[in-house]
Structure formats: structure tokens, C-alpha cells
């Protein structure tokens, strides 16, 4: 058997998955080929790691940690169930109030009398006596004075 064919089947040989004739063929080659035998040994040791790992001891405090985690999870769930009701009801009410206050403030600001307009009214009224000469000097007086001068 060639080395390449052996390498393809080596893991199945080590696992005992090959047919009897194929197993014999691989064994024969491994007895003759040093390189393949070395690789087979490496692979056997590597796969043997699994046997060590699956029999490892479990943490003796595992249940304590699970229980603690379960309790903290239950507490977190309790907080979570309260929060949505609070958010669902009060939050939209709060934002609606803010909106209404904003609109009211805007209307109030919009209706307030303008200082500039008031000044304009005062200044026009102030000027009017000077522009409206007739109220201070009636026309009859003016005419009589004109006739008198002539």
C-alpha cells in the first residue's frame, strides 16, 4: 500500500472503522514504513487527548453558581417587568405635556404686544401736534392775520 493511501485511511484504522482486509493492509505498511508509523503514533496520541478531556472532574461548586445565577436572573426579570409599564404609560404623558406647554408658550409669545409698535404709536402721536398745526392755530386766526397784514 502506498503512503498516500495509508494517510487517507489512518484515522479510520485507528478508530477501527476499516474492513478486516484493509486493517491488515495498513498494519503491514506501518510495520514497513517508518514515516507512516511515526505519523500514526502522533495521531494516536493526539486523538488520545479526547479520552483525558472527557473524564475531567467537574467543579464541585457548580450547583451553587447555577443557583446564584438563577436568582440574579429572576431579579433582573422582575425589574424588567416593572419598567415597561412605567415607560408605556408615563413617558407618552410626559412628552404630551411638554408638547402642550411648548405650543401654549408659542401662542403666548405670538400674541404679546410689540414694543416697537408701541414706540411707533407714541412717536407718531408726539409728532402729530407738530404736523397738525390746525389744532393750535385755527384757520380763521390765520386768515384774519393775513388780511390784517395786507
Amino acid at each position, binding site marked *: 500500500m502506498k503512503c498516500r493511501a495509508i494517510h*487517507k485511511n489512518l*484515522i479510520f484504522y485507528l478508530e477501527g472503522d476499516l474492513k478486516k482486509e484493509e486493517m491488515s493492509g495498513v498494519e503491514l505498511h506501518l510495520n514497513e514504513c517508518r514515516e507512516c508509523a511515526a505519523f500514526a503514533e*502522533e495521531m494516536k496520541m493526539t486523538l488520545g487527548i479526547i479520552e483525558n*478531556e472527557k473524564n475531567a472532574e467537574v*467543579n464541585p461548586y*457548580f*450547583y451553587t*453558581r*447555577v443557583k446564584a445565577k438563577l436568582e440574579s436572573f429572576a431579579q433582573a426579570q422582575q425589574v424588567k417587568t416593572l419598567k415597561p409599564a412605567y415607560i408605556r404609560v408615563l413617558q407618552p404623558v410626559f412628552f404630551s405635556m411638554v408638547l402642550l406647554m411648548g405650543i401654549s408658550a408659542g401662542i403666548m409669545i405670538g400674541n404679546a404686544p410689540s414694543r416697537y409698535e408701541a414706540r411707533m404709536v407714541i412717536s407718531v402721536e408726539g409728532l402729530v401736534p407738530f404736523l397738525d398745526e390746525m389744532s393750535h392755530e385755527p384757520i380763521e386766526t390765520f386768515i384774519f392775520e393775513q388780511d390784517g397784514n395786507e
Partner: protein
Amino acid sequence: MSESEIIQKLQQGDEHAFRSLVENYKKIVINTCFGIVHHQEDAEDIAQEVFIEVFRSVRNFRADAKLSTWLYRISVNRSLNFIRDNKNKKRIHSIDDLVQNKHSGLLSLSATRSDHPGLKFENSQRAEMLHLAVDSLPDNQKVAFTLNKYEDLSYQEIAEVMAISLSSVESLIHRAKKNLQKKLYDCYKKNCI
């Protein structure tokens, strides 16, 4: 307590039943998780979440499958989700990294079960190499291989856990072994150990 008693009392929220569940099944759950994530502490963390999920959803458990089958299923799903969520945090991403670390003298001892005082450093390197090779497998091959090798489940039992046919399990394990061999040979050629 028998399996049906445990389930019945769990559904009533009995703490003793929960303790019994954890004590009886913690080994298989942690082992299954370790076979997929290859890190003892992470495996225990995931196992804790598995038992919490069982406690929360035991009312929905139908007795048409075994409790162990259900536990395996949850363990596998949680472990695969953990790997997906923590993909970027791996210290060694490929066999090339392993070779590089070896040549640069970096010790890559993770918290694996190979840190047992009795084992030599070479064994921990082998374990790292094996874990990398298994991690490189597609998820379904990885799961089938892990359940077969770490839990000694029969192909029929694996088919029940994975909800696939027996022939599919045979095919998955065959391909997993073939891929593993290729990875291990590549590592051997690159002189990883």
C-alpha cells in the same frame, strides 16, 4: 429521582428537583459544551445557562423525547451561539498561528483540561492542535463528532439530538474524521509539536 419525577417536580418549581437535575446531568452538559468550545470556564458558564433555560422552559417540555436529548440539544445550540458571538476573541485562529507561536517561543496555554499537573507541555500543544482541527470543522460535523467522541453517543442517539437521519450522522462523522486527519497531517508536516 427518576427522569419523569424530576420533570414533574420541576414544572411545579421544586428546588430539590432542580438540584437533582443539575447534579445528575451537569457532567454531560459541561462535557458537551467543552467538546465544542474547548475552554473549561466557558463550558461551565454555558452549562449554567443551559440549566437556567431548562428551568425556565420546562413547562413547555413535552415528554416525547428524553430529558438528556433535550439537554444535549440546548447545550449544542448554546455552545455554537457562544462561538459565533466570540469569534473575534480567539487567541489562536489557525494552525499557522500555532506553528508561529511555537517557533517564536510563545506559550499558548489556555485554560484547557490539559493544564492538569500530570500532563507534559507537549500534551497541551497536542490538545491545542486537536481543538484547532475540530474548530475548523463545519458546525454539523463538529457537533456529530463531539457527541460521538466526548459523550460516546451512538449514531442513533446523535440522530435524535440533531434531528437528522442515521445515514446523515454516519456521513457527518465520516467527513469529520477525514477533515480532521487532513488538518492533523498538515500540522504534522509543519512540525506544530
